[in-house]
């Protein structure tokens, strides 16, 4: 930042860790201020999220969503593009899944999963393509266009559900149930093959494995391929990348396609894996949590994986808190906001003192 180097290990571990601790301390003060015990709240959250295979199941289910959206934001960040449109892209991914699963005959879930993946990624990618194209060719600010596209997606989905997908005579703005043949195997069925017992209730399903595989794939793409090198070079310095023969327009559009596709694939987990039909507002803010996850994970797929599990824990733990105490679920939104604030916007506030400490130690 300003010439004071921090060792790499501290940059990837210490800085985000201090930020998260700060966010948690403020959250604890908030819990205390509304008359609940922060310690009891933490204990209840940990018990609720990790105390049973039921809790683990939900934690991993939420984490799966956040891996998809977190990777989507992280890939875009690598190219210095801030894709706030994960919410809309994931919603459109849901539409892709619903259309593929409802209107094509699928003999087996494996084939349906393949088809739905293509549908989800394609719809998500197309929804990101327009803002990407406008940024690349017309210079429209991607942050503003992706925000606008979130709202347009919500209206579009509302229209599709109410006017086209809703079964005749139904009041509920949602699609018909998906055919049984397209039902994805749950985690307890997969673990059951190895004789490991696991709760049958939580909706965690095979999409978890896809999300983890995508973490590896994105890492491979970013650090082991020519395209990834170009993306990172473009993110580091656009003029330098351009000088090296990398086309900014081409990279911008490709990155947004990948990012939108990843966000869209979240629909495999929530639409195909859990609800097994398309409902209004199926994404429930997971697209935005992707921003917090990517910031905390330092835009590295492995970091995204860990941050997604942390947010999965917060979501499942938060649900337990809302169930048993007077603390509403929205507490998690506050924590999410604080994580974004400290790891994203107030990064320098944490970084500069840490850098000073290191330079003191070197001097002394």
């Amino acid at each position, binding site marked *: 930042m300003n010439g004071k180097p921090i060792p790499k290990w501290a940059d990837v571990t210490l800085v985000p860790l201090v930020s998260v601790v700060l966010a948690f301390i403020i959250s604890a003060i*908030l819990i205390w201020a*509304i*008359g609940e015990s922060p310690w009891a709240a933490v204990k209840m959250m940990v018990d609720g999220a990790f105390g049973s295979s039921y809790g683990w199941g939900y934690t991993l289910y939420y984490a799966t969503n956040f891996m998809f959206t977190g990777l989507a934001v992280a890939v875009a960040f690598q190219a210095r593009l*801030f894709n*706030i449109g994960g919410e809309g892209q994931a919603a459109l991914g849901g539409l892709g899944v619903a259309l593929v699963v409802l209107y094509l005959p699928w003999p087996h879930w494996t084939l349906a999963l393949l088809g739905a993946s293509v549908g989800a990624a394609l719809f998500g990618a197309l929804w990101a393509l*327009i803002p990407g194209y*406008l940024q690349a060719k*017309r*210079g*429209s*600010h991607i*942050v*503003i*266009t992706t*925000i*606008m*596209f979130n*709202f*347009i997606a919500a*209206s*579009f989905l*509302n*229209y599709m559900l*109410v*006017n086209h997908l809703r079964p005749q005579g139904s009041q509920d703005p949602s699609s018909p149930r998906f055919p049984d043949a397209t039902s994805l195997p749950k985690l307890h069925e997969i673990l059951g093959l190895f004789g490991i017992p696991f709760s049958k209730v939580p909706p965690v399903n095979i999409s978890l494995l896809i999300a983890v595989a995508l973490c590896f794939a994105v890492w491979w793409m970013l650090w082991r391929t020519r395209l990834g090198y170009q993306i990172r070079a473009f993110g580091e310095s656009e003029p330098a990348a351009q000088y090296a023969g990398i086309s900014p327009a081409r990279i911008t559009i490709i990155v947004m396609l990948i990012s939108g596709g990843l966000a869209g694939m979240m629909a495999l987990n929530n639409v195909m894996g859990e609800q097994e039909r398309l409902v209004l507002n199926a994404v429930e803010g997971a697209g*935005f949590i992707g*921003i917090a996850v990517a*910031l905390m994970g330092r835009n590295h797929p492995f970091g995204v994986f860990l941050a997604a599990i942390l947010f999965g824990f917060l979501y499942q733990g938060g649900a337990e808190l809302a169930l048993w105490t*007077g*603390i*509403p679920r*929205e*507490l*998690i*939104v*506050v*924590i*999410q*906001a*604080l994580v*974004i*604030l400290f790891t*994203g*916007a*107030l*990064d*320098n*506030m944490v970084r500069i003192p840490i850098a000073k400490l290191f330079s003191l130690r070197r001097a002394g």
Partner: protein
Amino acid sequence: MDLATLAQVLDSTLRLATPLLFACLAGLISERAGVFDIGLEGKILAAAFLAAAIAFVSGNVWLGVLAGIAVSVCMSLIHGVASITFRGNQLISGVAINFLAAGLTVVIAQNWFQQGGRTPSLTGDARMPTIDLPFAEALADVPVIGPVYGIFSGHAPLVYLAFLCVPATWFLLFRTRFGLRLRAVGENPAAVDTAGVSVIGLRFGAVAICGVLCGLAGAYLSTGLSAGFVKDMSAGRGYIALAAMIFAKWRPWHAMGAVLLFGLLEAVANRFQSIELFGLALPVQVMQALPYILTVVILAGFVGRAIPPRAGGSPYVKEH
């Protein structure tokens, strides 16, 4: 559509445009000074909550308005500290503020009132009063003039204040020394710095004005437009205001035009389920999405070019 319906739609257009206008001018002043603010939404929401809560507890709507302004300015200062002092990413800071408001309002509302994240309904003096313009009653029966005058009469004081803020903003930006410096700091902060004027001070000033205006937007929303706070009641208005600001290309008078257009769209979408236009039935969802679609079209530069202030979004680093 008969005349009475038209008058009703235009009447609610003015009321729906009011929070948009405050927020739009707020964003305009902040961005003219080079500080992007996508946290308008959060500030409106926080102000709406605290205004309704204090108005309910004190029974005085004006105390509520002050409280709304205060909380909104506090959030603006967080944005200022993050993006000006610590030179953080202004967009990320804005996103954080939106979530902070979305979460905190519900957590605190639930804690204070135990009504599922809302405030109790406001009645009497806790609600914003309306002002009847002179002769409104006497003119009501006069054809044409009566109904037209009626559209402008009988609104809350903040509605009139919002529209007065348009010339005031124009005057501030284009006819005062502060305004000149403010615009300069959004285009070329180094030049302002060289002239011996504090870039940081000017930007904080702009961010604080932005907070006051967003506070008014939120306070009107919960005490004037509706009677109490409900969860997520800003409902994307901060983003529509942002859209209006781009639509208006960062100019105050055009901003008024843009928010009136978007207010009209909202009023029409509230009133009718679908619109017949040139023999084509427009579904209500198209009306809802239209402000966003229009903004994308403007941003794409197909209808004139929308060029933001040049130094917008980048923190100022003094040369050593």
